[in-house]
Each structure stands twice: as structure tokens, then as C-alpha cells.
């Protein structure tokens, strides 16, 4: 698999951020923050409709899923991400990216990529840089 500077990574989208999945994640993370699983708490905090806030690692995971769909399950070497805005339940999100540089390190092709996650209203929720190892052929598996 070859990448070129400026190449767009195919988008990965999730049509509905699900509060049920947030609860699963909260239990596995042992995350005590009720903003992720208690609509009443979210309402008291001024979040319209009691919409709960998606866990940041799940937002990271959508970016990961985009990269895996592009370059395979073992492609990720490094991710450095910031989080300018939250994602809420019922949001539609789209992960995207673009190749910044391509290099070769001990025979492995590496692509440094700008990556992001946008809410459907255009708000950027995740922004950062990923270092991706490119497989010799295309990805052997796909994260849908």
C-alpha cells in the first residue's frame, strides 16, 4: 500500500452515537462521571434534553476505526489528539484524515496524518496527528 502527501483518508461515519454504548464503555472504563450515563444529571448541568456526553476515548476510537479501515488492524503507531468540543448522544459523527508526510523507517512505510472527528453540525470534536504504518498490500480487514 502506498500513500501520497495530501491524500485524503476515506471517511468513517457513525450515524448515531448511542447512549447504550456509552453505558457499556462507562462500565468497562469504571468511569464514575454521570455526565456519560445519567440524563437527569446532564439536564441539571444545562445540557438540553438531558443529552449525555460521549466518552472521549470513544471519540478517539472513531478516528482509530477510520485508520484501521484504511490501513489495517495493526497500523497505528501513535495518536496525539486534542478535544475541542464534546460529542453527545444521538449525534452523527464523521472521522476523516489527510496524509501529511510519508517516510520509510527500517523498511516500514510510515504515514503521518492529520486526523479529526466532526459532528454533523460541522463542529470539530477531535483534532490531532496519527502515525500509521502502511501494510505492504491493502488492509486485510475493515472496521466498519
Amino acid at each position, binding site marked *: 500500500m502506498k500513500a501520497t502527501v495530501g491524500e485524503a483518508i476515506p471517511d468513517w461515519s457513525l450515524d448515531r452515537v448511542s447512549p447504550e454504548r456509552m453505558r457499556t464503555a462507562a462500565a468497562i472504563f469504571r468511569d464514575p*462521571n454521570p455526565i456519560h450515563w445519567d440524563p437527569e444529571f446532564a439536564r441539571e448541568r444545562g445540557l438540553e434534553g438531558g443529552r449525555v456526553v460521549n466518552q472521549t476515548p470513544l471519540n478517539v476510537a472513531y478516528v482509530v476505526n477510520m485508520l484501521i479501515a484504511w490501513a489495517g488492524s495493526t497500523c497505528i503507531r501513535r495518536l*496525539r489528539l486534542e478535544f475541542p468540543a464534546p460529542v453527545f448522544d444521538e449525534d452523527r459523527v464523521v472521522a476523516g484524515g489527510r496524509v501529511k508526510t510519508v517516510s520509510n523507517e527500517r523498511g516500514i512505510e510510515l504515514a503521518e496524518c492529520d486526523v479529526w472527528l466532526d459532528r454533523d453540525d460541522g463542529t470539530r470534536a477531535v483534532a490531532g496527528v496519527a502515525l500509521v504504518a502502511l501494510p505492504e498490500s491493502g488492509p*486485510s480487514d475493515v472496521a466498519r
Partner: protein
Amino acid sequence: MISKAEMQALVGHTFPGGSCEIEHWENFLLTEATGSEPLPDDLVHPIHLFHVPIAGVGTSIAELFSLAQADSDASVTIDYYDWEFATPLREGVRYSVTGGVTEHERKLVENGPTVDSLTFRIELFEEAGEFAARATFRWHFWRFER
């Protein structure tokens, strides 16, 4: 409110350390929660580099909140994550885990809250001692009381 000196004293704090093993059920459920199909060959979804290092090093999110004397569970926000993988993580592999607090910064917002930012760094090693992965993350602890 906890003093700046008390927060600064957390730099250099090391967690007990320990080991961890990611089980199939956990990988399956959390991967599904990301909207992805399970990965092949016992590969662990990289999202596990959020909570596995925290648990493996012998602490928890709640304990990290407590360590920094967070005002409440909802008063903590995330600045950044920096995840490095020397090798993909896999189910059923035991990793040894070490880490601690590496940096602190306090900022005062005029007529607003104080924010303490703590950086944590936790590393995973394979049984033979080979470096496997590193999670570096900075959390903001917002203080609304003067």
C-alpha cells in the same frame, strides 16, 4: 482548595504498578461500543489504551480524581491523549505496567475558576520486558471555589 504546592508535590508520584491481561469479553464488548467489528487474530482495539494502563498500574479513574482532589466527578476534562504502540496489543497477553504523574501546571482565570493540569504517563511491557505501549494524558481539574 488544594494548594499549588500540594499539587506540585504530586509530580513524581508513582503508582503501585502491576500487570494486566485483556480478556476476550472485554475486548468484544468495548470494540462493539466503538461501532467496529471485532478485530482479527486476538488483536485488541486500540481504545483499550485508555483504561487498561490505569487499571494495570494499580489505580482507577476515581482514584486519579481523588489524588488531585477533584471538586466532583464532573469537574475533570481532558486536554490531550498521546498513545504510542510499539506492537499491537492482544487478548490473553500479560503486560506489566508502570507509571506515574510527570507534570503539573496551575492556571488562574481572571474572575473565573482555577485549573490544575496533571500529566500522567503509563507504560506497558511484554513478559520478556519488551516495551509494548505508552499512554500519556493530561487532564484538567477545574476548581470553582476560591
